[in-house]
């Protein structure tokens, strides 16, 4: 077989030969030389088109299901839209209403902020402490790691939300245990002061996934650092303060951002535990739950879109602030 010498592409000749071998039927009627150049041209066109063919499903999804809808929801956030009649432009009215004329909205912001800023630090603290306890060369680490991961696996499910509703109810598991030591508990879920606390406990309970990440990072810390510290007689707290924690700070930041974003969007537990109301007295009215109520129960799609965009901006701002603050406490090797 003749190899096409016209090509600029160094790898092309060998390519072409192999290609016609693997697809013997193609261009068989033509003269060997022209067959070579022709299939080369086809080949080059295919090579150029290939990336976009591979990307086609994602590209379609990106345009039709992600980016397009994003723009549309930005537009809808400036409208009054009930699905039943066409959207009506109202300018910034939805945003104004959120902050000036909708106390329930502000309540949902308050509830979500407490949930996020109480549960995430606690969750990360547990994750770090347990990860360090597990990272001492003990046997059976994979089993322990799995046990501590289980709550993360199931924590977001309706099943666990149902369990929580029983556990923290008037005659639920928690009060049964308290009764054993002579304490008479209240309905933790039925009382506005404690209902949010039960959901915070639920989120802290799922510390397994950041813990697994901490564990992986702890193993990356070079042993010689600890050996040097041992020679110098550094205390356990000193080792944590000056070696473990600084080495872990990039992962702490990573886990923190991930968990903050996740917690801001929590929905299922609040919905199931409060029966979709966010009660009692709006004490579990998570942001996304209120958004759902406005958008899909009240059909205020414009308002719901404005809420969603406010959420996006807050998430972006919190992530940005986190990165900005990180230069003061996160330790990077390079």
């Amino acid at each position, binding site marked *: 077989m003749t190899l096409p010498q016209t090509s600029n592409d160094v*790898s092309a000749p060998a390519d072409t030969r192999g290609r016609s071998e693997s697809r013997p039927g193609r261009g068989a009627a033509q003269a060997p030389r022209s067959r070579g150049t022709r299939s080369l041209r086809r080949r080059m066109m295919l090579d150029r088109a290939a990336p976009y063919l591979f990307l086609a499903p994602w590209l379609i999804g990106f345009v039709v299901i992600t980016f397009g809808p994003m723009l*549309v929801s930005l537009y809808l956030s400036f409208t009054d839209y009930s699905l039943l009649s066409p959207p009506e432009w109202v300018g910034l009215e939805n945003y104004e209403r959120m902050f000036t004329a909708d106390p329930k909205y502000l309540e949902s912001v308050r509830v979500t902020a407490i949930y996020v800023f109480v549960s995430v630090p606690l969750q990360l603290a547990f994750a770090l402490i347990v990860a360090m306890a597990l990272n001492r060369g*003990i046997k059976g680490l994979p089993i322990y790691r799995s046990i501590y991961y289980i709550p993360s696996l199931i924590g977001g499910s309706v099943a666990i939300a149902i369990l929580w509703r029983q556990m923290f109810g008037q005659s639920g598991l928690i009060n049964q245990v308290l009764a054993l030591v002579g304490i008479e508990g209240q309905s933790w879920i039925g009382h506005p002061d404690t209902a949010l606390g039960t959901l915070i406990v639920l989120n802290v309970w799922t510390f397994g996934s950041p813990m697994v990440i901490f564990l992986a990072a702890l193993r990356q810390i070079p042993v010689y650092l600890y050996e040097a510290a041992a020679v110098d007689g550094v205390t356990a707290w000193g080792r944590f303060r000056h070696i473990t924690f600084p080495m872990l700070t990039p992962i702490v930041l990573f886990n923190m951002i991930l968990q903050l974003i996740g917690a801001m969007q929590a929905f299922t537990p609040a919905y199931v535990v409060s029966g979709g109301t966010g009660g009692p007295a709006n004490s579990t009215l998570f942001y996304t739950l209120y958004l759902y109520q406005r958008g899909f129960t009240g059909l205020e799609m414009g308002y719901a879109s404005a809420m969603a965009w406010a959420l996006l901006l807050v998430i972006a701002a919190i992530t940005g602030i986190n990165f900005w603050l990180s230069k003061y406490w996160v330790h990077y090797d390079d």
Partner: protein
Amino acid sequence: MTTNMTGIVGAKKSKTRKALAHFLIIGFGMLMLYPVLWMIGSSFKDTAQIFSEVSLIPNPVVTDNYERGWEGAGIGFSTYFLNSTIVAALAVIGNLIACSLAAYAFARLDFRLRRVLFGAMLATIMLPYHVVIVPQYILFAQLDWVNTFLPLIAPKFLAVDSFFIFLMVQFMRGLPVELDQAARVDGAGPFQIYWRIILPLTIPALATTAIFTFIWTWNDFFTPMIYLSDPRLYTVPLGLNSFLDSTGESSWGPMFAMAVLSLGPLFGFFLAGQKYLTSGIATTGLKG
């Protein structure tokens, strides 16, 4: 760190310390899992007993809850489980195909818009779902897809879960480039390289994707709630929730029984794919 200090005393001390460490770790683990174990135990108890017994082991063992629960309220749980299985299985298939195709292009092919598109893909990872939910709903409603499984499945075939693309890109970048070059010399085109060389070597990342897609889809409550209002199409989480609504607080036994069953497949996948799961979380920070 203290063991290498001096001889037998140190060894003995570390042995008791080790035993103590195991004891504490197991104890705390048990405390954490106690509610779940108690729910499993309680699913075999009489409803009255659920509210009076803290113990994990049911006595007597009652299987009545499972029979009553399985029948559900109106539509049985067999329908819900079937629906959930269909949705989860198709979501897994969709994510595996579409995400691996896109990941291969980003990781192994060179094209002009690569950096821009890759950046766009990364930007969507952290996008809250709520920002797109309203227009998506309008779109799917216009396509007449409400009250079908399509809104839950079709996006997966369009690689909307960009987290998994990122996971696979990271993995594929670690594979030696010589593989592609050798295959090209042997005359393989990009599709053959993808299918015969890259994909088989990406199996760990594919497994992580499959497991997480399954867990997320199986647990998902928000999306099915928005799109499915016909009880015959309910997935398990919707079924559980409507069971809770319709029976009120009266039948905790059957409710616990169905809640336990709904967690079964999660544990199954977890145990089967533990290796991939923990490595996947460790490399990308996915949440279960």
